[in-house]
Each structure stands twice: as C-alpha cells, then as structure tokens.
C-alpha cells in the first residue's frame, strides 16, 4: 500500500505540471481558437531565461519575476501579434503548422545558443524529505503539487468570478455578442495570451528542477499537456487539472506494474479512449458548431 501511495504522490506532482502546461492550451483555444503546439517550448524558454538571470547573480524570485515580464511581452503579445493574429484569418490549420514549426525553431535556437547539454536548475522548494504514513515525500513534490493546484484553481476562479475573467469567457463563447455588449475583445484575447505566458513561466519554475533545463525538455511535456487538456476537456480548466493528474498517475502506475517501456503509451491510449468514448473530455461540455 505504501508503494502504491508513493507512486500516487509522485504521479500527482508530475500530473499537476501537465495540467499547468495544459491549461495554456485550453486558455488560448477558448480565447482565440489558437492551438499552440509550441506550448512545451513556451515552458522551456522561461526555464533558460530564469537560468540565465540566476547565472547573472539575481535571486531566484527576482529572476522568475523578470522572466515573467519578458514572457508576457515575447510569448504573450509577440506570439499573438506575430503568429496567431495574422494566421488565424486563414483558419486553424496554418496556426497549427506554424506553431509546430515554431517549436522546432525554438528548440534548435536554444540548442545552438545555449548548448545541447542538460543544466541543473535551482528548486524553489528545496529537497527535504518527509515520511508521511510510510510514504517518503519531498518538499519539492508537495510544493509543486500545491503550487500547481493554486495556479489552476486560481485561474479558474479568475475566469469565473472576476469581471475581466467573465469578459474573457464571453469572448471565448461568442466574440460577436461580446462586441455588442461592449467588451474590448482584442484586449481580452491579449489577456489570455499573457496569462498563458505567466503560467508557462510557473510551469518552468516547478518542473525544471526535476526535468533539468534542456533544449528538448518541452517536447514530451507539450505532448502530455495536450493529451491532458483533451482528456480533461478542452473547454474546462478544472478538466485540464483532472486530465493532467489522470495522465501523471496512470503513467507512474503503468511504469511500476506493467513496464517502463509502455509508460509513454499510457497517455496516448487514454487520449484515444477519451476521444472515442467521450470526445468532449471528462469534464468538458459538448459544443455544437454550424458548418
């Protein structure tokens, strides 16, 4: 039982990171119909930003804050204006292809500019050990899980309970009606891109101590985050949290009780199963589209 709990705790921590990155997918999709397949690289870039600023002697919180500010401009505003806005006029496919290309370009740019090697990354929580009910947990696992939960639920609360959040949801549901009731639609969409950039920075801060900072660290993370978002429900933030946790825990259990070789296949199998049985995701709502 203790072993099962050990795997569960570890899977929850990993799954919460998938959820955090996956939340970016749902935010951008809801706000502007953008499918960002460079989401993993949007986590990788801030990781190197924080690392570079820490290398200059800045304390970790300051390096994180500066990276967030830069990310809002570059990964938020820059991405929206440079890629999403011009390509969305031609439909979803050009954005999908462009972000796939962007992910390759970003990986190779970091590889060429920084190095292809993995780099150690400081942990914001430290790595003290605790024994709880026969399970060894680290401060980093607990901290990651707690921070990810706070961020995902906080984002959900922001969207549901604030005027700005509701305006963003209104834009996501029907941009034309949102204009009629006086909502500044472009601004709301920009907010969604900015929030996504900050969430990516938070994911970078939480996941990189374990994954290590490496140019290709976003590759698997981006894929798992996408699976998590679809499994949980692409139009529901809490669904993404559930999807991330389901993927993280199932992966861990499969690696321990079946084989490590099948670990990566678990997320894909769940993804396919959900698409076949419940296409709107575990907590998502079906959306009808006129064609």
């Amino acid at each position, binding site marked *: 039982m203790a*072993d099962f709990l*050990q*795997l569960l705790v*570890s*899977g929850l921590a*990993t799954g919460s990171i998938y959820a955090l990155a996956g939340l970016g997918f749902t935010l951008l999709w809801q706000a502007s119909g953008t499918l960002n397949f460079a989401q993993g690289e949007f986590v990788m870039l801030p990781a190197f930003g924080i690392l570079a600023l820490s290398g200059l002697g800045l304390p970790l919180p300051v390096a994180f804050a500066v990276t967030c500010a830069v990310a809002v401009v570059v990964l938020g505003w820059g991405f929206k204006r440079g890629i999403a806005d011009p390509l969305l006029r031609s439909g979803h496919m050009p954005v999908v292809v462009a972000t796939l290309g962007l992910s390759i370009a970003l990986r190779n740019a970091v*590889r060429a500019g920084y*190095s*292809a*090697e*993995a*780099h*150690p990354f400081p942990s914001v929580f430290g*790595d003290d*050990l605790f*024994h709880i009910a026969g399970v*060894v947990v*680290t401060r980093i*696992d607990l901290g990651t899980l707690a921070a990810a939960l706070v961020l995902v639920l906080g984002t959900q609360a922001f969207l549901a309970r604030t005027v700005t959040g509701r305006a963003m949801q209104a834009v996501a549901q029907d941009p034309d009606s949102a204009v009629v009731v006086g909502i500044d639609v472009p601004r709301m969409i920009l907010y969604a891109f900015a929030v996504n950039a900050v969430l990516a920075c938070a994911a970078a801060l939480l996941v990189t101590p*374990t*994954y*290590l900072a*490496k*140019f*290709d660290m976003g590759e*698997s993370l981006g894929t798992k985050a996408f699976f998590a978002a679809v499994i949980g429900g692409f139009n529901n933030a809490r669904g993404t949290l559930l999807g991330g946790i389901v993927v993280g825990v199932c*992966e*861990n*259990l499969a*690696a*321990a009780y079946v*084989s*490590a*070789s099948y*670990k*990566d296949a678990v997320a894909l199998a769940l993804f396919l199963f959900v698409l076949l049985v419940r296409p709107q995701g575990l907590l998502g709502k079906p959306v009808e589209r006129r064609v």
Partner: protein
Amino acid sequence: MNAKLPAAAVVACLLAASTAHAQIKIAVIQELSGTGATAGTNFKNGVDLAVKEINAAGGILGQKLDATFEDTQSNPGVAKGLALKAVDDGAFAVFGPTFSGSMLVSMAQTRRAEVPNFTGADAATLTQQGNPYIFRTSFTQLISMPRVAHYLASALKARRVAVIFVNNDFGKGGRDAFVKAAVAAGLTVTADVSTEAGQLDFSAPVLKARQSDPDALFVYTNEEESARCLRELRKQAFARPIVGETTLAGQRVIELAGAAANGVLAHVGLTVDAPIPAVHEFRARFEKAYKYVPDHNGIKGYTSVFFLKAGIEAAGKLDRVAVARALHGLKIRAAKQPGVLMDVAIDDHGDLDRASFIVQVKDGKQEVKEVLPPVARF
C-alpha cells in the same frame, strides 16, 4: 615551350606548398546534441585540446593535424552517414561516435575504407566482430563489469543486488555483462529493471528496485538519466550502497544530481581525480580551455589522439593499414608519450588495459578509494 614554363612553375610551387602544409585529416564524429550530448561534447573537447597541443609541438612526423567536428545528434542513422562522409573526405582516422548503437552501424564504413576508428563506446560486442580498425579509448564492459561485481562481493560484502539499466545498446550490453559477472561472483540479482533513454521520471524503477530489498543497487544508465535516477533514489530515501560503472560518478552526473550524488560508488577506468600528476595537469589545461571540469569522456577524447600519434610513430609512416597493425599489441608508456596520461596496452582486438579506480562521490567530488593495477606488464 616558353608558354609552358610559367604553368610548370605554378604547378611546382603548388606541389611544394602542399608538401609544406600537408595535414593529417581526422574526423571527429560525436554526439553533440540529443541524449549523448554530455559524453560527446566532452570527447570532442578532449580531441580538440590534444590536436592543439600536438600541432603546437610540431605535429606528427612533421605534419599537422586537421580536425573536423560533426554531430551525430545521438542518432545511429546520422552517425552512419557522417562516417561515410568522413571516409569519402579522406579522413586518416575517425574519432567516434561514443554511443555503442551508433558505433555498431558506423564502424562498417571505416572498416571498408581501412580507416582507424577510435571510440569511447563501451559495448562488448564492438571489438568481438574481428574488425581490425576499431580501437577503444576505455575498457570494454567485459573487463570492467567483473571488477564491479568483485568489488560488490568482496569489499561491500553484498549478496543481493538490484539492477537498473537503460534499454539501449550501451545499457543492455552493460547489464548482460554485469549480471553474468555478478552471478559468477556469487551475487543474486533481486530486480532487473529496464528504463528508457531520455526517461524523466524514475519513481517507478526506483520503487521496483527498493521493493526487491537488495544489499546494493547497480545503476547503468547514460548521464542525464543517471542524475535523475540518483535524485529519485534520494527522494525515496534509498539507504543501501549505490554502485555504478564510470558514468554514474561522472563529473556531469555529479553536477546535475547535486547532493543526491554523494555517497555513490563507481568503478572508473578514467577519472580526472586520479592520483596521477599527468591527469591533474590535463584537468587544469582542459578547465582553462573550456571553463568546466572534464569527465572521463574528456580524457578518452584527449588520449585517443595520442594513441593515434603513438601508432603513426610506431609505424613510421602515414599509412592507415600500417598504423592499425602497429597499434595492435602496442604498449604505450606515459613516460615516452605523456599525452596518454597512464601506461596503456592495446591488444589484438583493439581493447585496452591500464590501471583503473574505485571512486566515491563526497561533497560533490570524486575521491579515489582504491587503485586497481593493469593486468598487462609494462
């Protein structure tokens, strides 16, 4: 007739110039990106340093070395293509790749062209195929694993050992050699856990190893995976001895794993912390040139160029076949060829023998616990 004179003069001048600047082309094919980037980059920098030093000292038989560096991207297919390109470009010798899987597919190209091929790959099968142009820069797993198993059984008094290995040619070869040696040394393998190259989460493999209640754990994975595995072992409070072979106590693993690397034991064929003055001096020169402490792959790369130098000098001419023949059975004494750092003997298969070490990581540094002498007599 007069019109032909200037042309003849130009040709003569060109010939003279080419003789004066004749160079020995060497192709360095390494894992500069992908999962083998740490090993490949160290090896490449080691070769680069050796080339600069040899050229500064006048070259080999009066000719300078001209090195080109290529990235296999840790991909066997790319490695094979690069080996073919090196051969077509007329390389005198090829250095790499370091990944055993890449080496297995690329060495056919260098063999076909009769080009000496130096490698840091560990898989035992590489030198068992009768290829006369393959030369190792480190121990084969068949030499190193019995030393690890003997250390576990005799010094650590272990009876039960769990194994975590990476599921690639390097890992499987090491796992097979270790399990065979462990059984021969009277050890029982309690868990045999396979992991994937590039694996990020080691909670399940570590848990499986822990559940088997071993006296010690043997870990045989690549650099980044080793660091992640050590972090997970610390996370799960694994309190038994953790033992590895070379990679596990490598400098890069120590940097990536942080405090989790402390206490790790490993048999290493090469270490920059060896109690040998020549190795200390090499470490200082490398650190000055590349701003970081090299690992064993840096030493492999550096010494391999001096193996080639010793081979060419023993052959007395720049003839690839003659150099390969001269290298087989060659004993290179560090007193005469300081670049090899330690006395080394190359056998008829291209495998080598020299002293090795048992090290332990303490406060983020390797400490040599024991020096194991070479079998060969110098």
